[in-house]
């Protein structure tokens, strides 16, 4: 069920001390793959963050479909989790990029947003690609329908043969 997901690491040169440089993200993703009983598809990415400069206990922000949200952390502060839900009917499959920002990136992003500037100039410290293969929404054709079609076909064949015989 758990899909190991590709992780793309973007290296950003950051000058300040407390921030994370050379972020390495190791992520495990989970998405609901059975949409028959749930109304919303859950997208969950669990990951750990290690920085080449040894920075610890960093608050992260993530850009998801809900906008920019604070990333949940386990209480010991080692594991992070980004998660959201989407309606099962409209949930999109495929790669879902999650951009991660630290405090500075978040501040820059907010500033850019406020000034109506292009937010793509702000580099995330890392990007996770959460892959959702699509959810099973039940059989495409009901088996009952198939059975009925088969029955009609057999009946039709028999009937044509019979009429030919009688003609």
């Amino acid at each position: 069920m758990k899909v190991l997901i590709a992780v793309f690491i973007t290296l950003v040169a950051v000058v300040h001390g407390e921030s994370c440089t050379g972020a390495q993200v190791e992520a495990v993703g989970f998405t609901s793959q059975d949409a028959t009983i749930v109304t919303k598809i859950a997208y969950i990415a669990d990951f750990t963050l290690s920085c080449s400069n040894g920075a610890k206990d960093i608050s992260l922000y993530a850009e998801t479909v809900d906008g920019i949200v604070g990333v949940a952390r386990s209480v010991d502060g080692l594991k992070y989790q980004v998660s959201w839900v989407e309606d099962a009917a409209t949930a999109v499959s495929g790669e879902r990029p999650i951009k991660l920002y630290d405090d500075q990136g978040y501040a820059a992003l907010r500033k850019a947003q406020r000034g109506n500037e292009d937010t793509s100039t702000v580099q995330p410290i890392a990007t996770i690609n959460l892959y959702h293969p699509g959810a099973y929404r039940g059989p495409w054709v009901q088996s009952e329908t198939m059975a009925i079609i088969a029955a009609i076909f057999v009946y039709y064949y028999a009937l044509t043969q019979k009429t030919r015989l009688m003609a």
Partner: protein
Amino acid sequence: MKVLSYLILALAFVGCVLSEGEGEERARLLAAKRVHNLYLVEGRDIVVQYSVHNVGQAAAINVQLTDAGFSTEDFDIAGGQLQVKFDRIAPNANVSHTVVVKPKKYGYFNFTAAEVSYQPSEDSAEIQIGYTSEPGEGGIIAFRDYDRKFSPHVFDWLIFALLMIPALLVPYMMWYNIKSKYATVPRGKKGRSD
């Protein structure tokens, strides 16, 4: 125009005074726990979403969300963590957190509230404890019952088809034998045009 701006200023001032008059600014969290399922089925996903809204004036610091409602003996955790913290939730902001669990047993289960604890402002040592909304009691269906009702029954239909085959094949073979016997008769051209 000028009058209007003065008025706005005055109003803003009054607003400031009023809010100050209410005492220190505090965060106020509302937390909801939702179960996004049509059916609760043994061994299948249950999508639980927690959303925390800050309706106060200050940011909530060190928000811890703990759900003790899903014990490991009754549930497997398929995705997500049951105990997380958010460093900060700004005023008027909201965060959401999702966990997917799979029940190990069937029967009625009471989805209880999760606990939220936070510091209501930056410089407050006090820890406020709150609880999320309760989704309430839900019946978890046994997988067998669910499968009986909702699976495509492909296997059952196959068995049915197998049972039907002799009943169809025997008359067909009989007819086919007779037909092939008389196929050379000129009249047969009408019967076998395809």
